């Protein structure tokens, strides 16, 4: 089932800036979708339009098949939003701000559910503290707790781990995986490639208001990633000069590197090894390196 459907979405500002250009995107129910993109690419604008905070110029957004403007009460009731900036009522107590959020979404009060959320985010001991007394990381967790207080089916997280330490980041990743297991669809934007690589099922890359690619994470890495085979030999380079020429190998001391890109060429690694063996070259070691998401991302946005 499609949780989020976006068709031909455009957003232009009065000053002529085109923030989003003909965005088409579908996010399936229960998946974690990560949207990567540099600053100003349009990530937050896209989330704000889906959630009803910003107006679109044209196009259509649906949540579980319903239009986010015509059926806004239905669509918004399914959505929880954690914005990029920490915005809370500083003088409010943690528990009261959660009660406020739950009420705002027309949910029956439930101390039991709110206690569960507080426990899940390690906020139980802080529930009667004013938000202003909390650390930055805790405030971030309060923002997530607020977004979850009304039991949403889709959770939007706009750079949820920006400025958060490594431990808390990993705690959040585990928590998001738990939510996914409970059937919550997660749409997150991030600067941290590691974050997308660790928790996302599918990845989208946005640049200058355009979706450059959306793909399953593993497929994306396989499809666009480069594979580097580093062969350590125990023979003279001269002996195999014709092989280095044939396979365009890079030489570094006794190491030969063969770079294969599935988009550009055919994988000749098996043939290379065969040729080396035929030439009686003694192979000491073979290493295979796959390019990570960060390299793919930089490669795409720098084009």
């Amino acid at each position, binding site marked *: 089932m499609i949780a989020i459907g976006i068709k031909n979405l455009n957003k232009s500002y009065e000053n002529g800036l085109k923030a989003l250009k003909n965005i088409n995107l579908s996010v399936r129910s229960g998946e974690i979708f990560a949207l990567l993109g540099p600053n100003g690419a349009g990530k937050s604008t896209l989330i704000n339009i889906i959630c009803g905070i910003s107006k679109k110029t044209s196009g259509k957004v649906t949540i579980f098949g319903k239009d986010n403007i015509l059926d806004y009460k239905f669509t918004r009731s399914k959505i929880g939003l954690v914005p990029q900036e920490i915005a*809370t009522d500083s003088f409010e107590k943690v528990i009261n701000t959660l009660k406020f959020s739950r*009420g*705002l979404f*027309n949910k029956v009060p439930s101390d039991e559910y709110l206690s569960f959320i507080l426990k899940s985010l390690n906020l139980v001991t802080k529930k009667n503290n004013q938000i202003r007394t909390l650390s930055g990381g805790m405030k971030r967790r309060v923002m997530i707790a607020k977004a979850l207080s009304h039991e949403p089916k889709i959770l939007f997280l706009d750079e949820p781990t920006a400025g958060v330490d490594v431990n808390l980041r990993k705690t959040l990743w585990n928590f998001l995986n738990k939510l996914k297991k409970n059937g919550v669809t997660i749409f997150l934007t991030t600067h941290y490639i590691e974050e997308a690589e660790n928790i996302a099922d599918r990845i989208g890359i946005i640049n200058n208001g355009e979706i450059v690619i959306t793909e399953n994470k593993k497929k994306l890495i396989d499809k666009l990633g480069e594979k580097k085979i580093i062969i350590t030999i125990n023979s003279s380079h001269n002996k195999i000069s014709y092989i280095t020429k044939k396979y365009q190998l890079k030489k570094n001391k006794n190491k030969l590197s063969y770079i294969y890109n599935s988009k550009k060429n055919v994988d000749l690694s098996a043939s290379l090894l065969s040729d080396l063996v035929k030439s009686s070259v003694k192979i000491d070691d073979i290493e295979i390196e796959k390019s990570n998401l960060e390299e793919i991302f930089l490669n795409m946005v720098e084009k």
Partner: protein
Amino acid sequence: MNLRGIFAIYHFEMSRMFRTVSQSIASPVLSTALYFIVFGSAIGSKIGNIDGVNYTSFLVPGLIMLTILNQSVSNASFGIYFPKFSGTIYEILSAPISPIEITCGYVLAAASKSVLVGLIILITSAFFIEITILHPFWMLLFLILMSITFSLFGFIIGIWANDFQKIQLIPSFILTPLTFLGGSFYSIGMLPDFWQKLSYVNPIVYLISSFRWSFYGKSDVNVVVSISATLFFLVLCMVFVSWIFKTGYKIKT
């Protein structure tokens, strides 16, 4: 109808008032008590009666109205402006709550605070002077109606304002002068003919006049005209608020 959403906003705003009692309640009550001491006891003893009413007693409806208008506007404008300023407005805008429901939450909270302050001032004034209320039902109705109308007006100011200075602009430069010149401290009939006619252009005259009528049965203008003027202003504010939410003016980018 998202009644829980309306209540959530209402409850949040009322909690804010109780967190800041000195600012929300004590301050307007103290200012009004000072008006009674200065204008009522000190200067009022030299003035005598107006329209057959002792001057200090005559002041009560005007002072309550002065406070009500200021409190309604400032409470409602601050109530909606602060979430815009702090960024917490995102939660309201992304919640399944309609523009009418949002407005109800903020305006009812601001109006409740004003009515509460108005009633506290009324009770406080009873310690200084003898209070007569000939039409208590109408008095309460005017109090509520004007609190709601000016809270709605304040709500519009709060949406329009993009800095703290603008929140104070209309209350300081338009509302307060009009209230002072609208008969809070005197009867319009005491003015020279030209100023009397000019005063009838001031909408606040109608509000104060009808409110004073509910106390003493005497009014500078026809009570029906006063109520009609208040209702007209209320409808005008409602139309403007619905336009704001329809277009996203100053709320959505």
